[in-house]
């Protein structure tokens, strides 16, 4: 277990302790204030170079990371890489070596292959690697910003700051994650974060979208989604990729909505004060009814907004604490 990401790469939440996660959340909270200033910039990473390397395009995540890096005064190299390194004819090792030759302190990396960020860390051990999503493996900053958002909203209701609450608001919190768990890096990171912070996590979804090893995850699988809705303090929806709903995994998108969509009717059976979350982009009308997405209970825009301070915190802890050299 890692008790702090200071000076380290961030590849997965699986090995992060509660203490390490809380440190990121607390650090992010101090950056929320920066984002509300007229001049949204601190000199924490002045002179440092952060490369963003998106093998799989994701404009939202890339902008969020680049905004975070710029607000820390880092220089940002933004590289749009073709969808597959193999198609482009260059190996992952050569691609990262080329970027490294430009002189970088950190690389923020998104890749369609599970494990690609870990491989890159082996290729350039002196560079901090921030995993911005690798295949179906992990999306650590999403897990962190989701946990941050829950803490922030629940703390506000008690008139406290998130920092004051530590991880206490997660004790016994009921979190229900719904949808394509099998193919979701967001689910894997969210579950790791919530469980580390003390929440009780259940998952729901069609049998074809459950991972093969779900019995060994620190979660329980709900049999009846409609009952579980009444149990949940937080409902985390996952995006259903349209191609999964063409009969390969789910007979149709309409059937998915019927079995696991957060419909208007289901939303009315949520507990009072329950939160609705979605990592975006949403398929309105599929996993979430359009009106439900716009309810006050839906904190989806908060999640997007919190992406920047969380990524500032991750970059700050990971890069500011480093002076070259390899990870501890």
């Amino acid at each position, binding site marked *: 277990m890692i008790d702090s990401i200071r000076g380290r790469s961030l590849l997965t939440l699986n090995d992060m302790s509660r203490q390490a996660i809380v440190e990121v959340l607390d650090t992010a909270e101090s950056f929320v204030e920066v984002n509300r200033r007229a001049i949204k910039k601190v000199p924490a990473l002045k002179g440092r170079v952060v490369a963003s390397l998106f093998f799989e395009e994701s404009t939202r995540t890339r902008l969020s990371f680049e905004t975070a890096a710029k607000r820390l005064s880092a220089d940002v190299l933004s590289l749009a890489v073709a969808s597959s390194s193999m198609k482009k004819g260059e190996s992952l090792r050569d691609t990262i070596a080329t970027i490294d030759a430009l002189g970088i302190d950190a690389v923020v990396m998104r890749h369609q*292959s599970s494990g690609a960020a870990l491989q890159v860390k082996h290729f350039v051990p002196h560079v901090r690697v921030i995993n911005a999503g690798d*295949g179906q493996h992990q999306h650590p900053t999403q897990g962190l910003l989701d946990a941050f958002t829950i803490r922030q909203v629940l703390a506000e209701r008690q008139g406290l700051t998130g920092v004051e609450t530590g991880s206490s608001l997660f004790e016994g919190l009921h979190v229900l994650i719904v949808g394509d768990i099998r193919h979701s890096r967001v689910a894997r990171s969210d579950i790791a974060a919530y469980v580390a912070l003390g929440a009780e996590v259940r998952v729901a979804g069609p049998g074809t979208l459950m991972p093969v090893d779900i019995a060994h995850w620190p979660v329980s699988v709900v049999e009846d989604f409609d009952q579980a809705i009444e149990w949940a303090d937080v409902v985390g929806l996952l995006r259903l990729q349209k191609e999964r709903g063409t009969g390969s995994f789910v007979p149709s998108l309409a059937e998915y909505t019927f079995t696991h969509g957060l419909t208007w009717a289901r939303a009315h059976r949520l507990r009072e004060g329950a939160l609705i979350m979605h990592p975006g982009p949403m398929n309105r009308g599929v996993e979430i009814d359009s009106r439900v997405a716009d309810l006050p209970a839906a904190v989806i825009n908060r999640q997007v907004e919190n992406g920047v301070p969380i990524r500032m915190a991750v970059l700050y802890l990971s890069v500011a604490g480093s002076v070259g050299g390899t990870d501890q």
Partner: protein
Amino acid sequence: MSALVLRQGFVVGPTTARIADVLVIDGVIAEVAAHVDAPLGTTEIDAEDCWVGPGLVDIHTHLREPGREEAETIESGAHAGVIGGFTALVAMPNTEPALDNVALVAYVLERGARTLLDVAVAGAITQGRRGEYLAPMAEMAALGVRLFTDDGIGVQNPSLMRRALEYAKPLGVTLAQHCEDEQLASGGSMNESLLSGRLGLSGRPALAEEIMVMRDLELVRLTGARMHFLHLSTARSVASVVAARAEGLPVSFEVAPHHFTLDEDSCETFDPMFKVHPPLRTRSDVDALRVALRTGLVDAVATDHAPHAPELKDLPFDEAPAGMLGLEHVASLTFEALGAQQCDPHRFFDLLSRGPARVAQLRHADAPGPLNGHGGSLVVGERANLVVFDPSARWTVDRSTLHSRSTNTPYHGRELTGRVRSTVARGHLVADQGVLR
């Protein structure tokens, strides 16, 4: 006249063994005796404290030529082979283009004949290994091809596989199958398991292999044709074939060294060096394979030597090609799996020489052919394909000193016990102390 003598080795025949000298004259074993008076000018090879046995036979080598010469050539593969103790290799047909016709088979045989060891060819079962139409097996058989396979992929269509078996049966050839139902494997890149779920890598379930093994056993029962199962990797696959063989079905199977030495946990680092099809399985599968090896249930150890250019292993796990090297360390890995100092030398040579030679029909007793003379009994009159194995040597695998053109070994840095000291192929000393002669 050329002559060489192996002095005072522990000469391992099929059932007996004794310390003796082995004299080879003009490529043939001329005398085996407690002490041999060699003619003047005979090359002397010290085999004291070593095993002397029939040269190793690999029935599953990817030599990559034609098409992927940057990864391996017939010549470089032969070099790796003799260093590893081999005197015969069977070249797999998944080259580019595939070995599915007489012209290409003749090309590989001709190139092979110029190397230090014997290169036999496995032909493709289907045209282009596409699993659609039968390849001209009779024409290739006329060139001496005795094994046919679409290895890299199994023949997926059961109707076509049935016809292939019916067609092959009167030709006296053996069909060899890479058993994995690709629809069930669904493009996965490691064993489907707890670990694959956690790593977010899509899995190739054990069942994808087992279901095809079971299908093909029933096709053998139906057709009566001979079949060999390539690189079985799960406990249930092995149990199925062992049971069918005991019933009298004409089947045999091999296991690959990586499947009895490495388990799926190696994939945790996402290092594509550990990517192979069928994938590395669970620890209990590894243990079951080792038990099968020790108890004499396995027909052959086969390397599935699969060279890949380095840049292809610098790709993400799911994009990188499957396969790893095997020729240069399989003897040591097998020796260790059989208990190292407790290793039964008869079993060792059964698994690495006599068994595979029988499967590939390369023995002295098989239908006459230029490549016969492997897996022998070390008696006078046999072609001299021999290996000297030092059971007490210790060495460390170093990818930079391999003779293969590629370096994709998963064993880099691993210390091994037992090592091939000398290889005599076609009566010539071709490798000695890890150096080509």
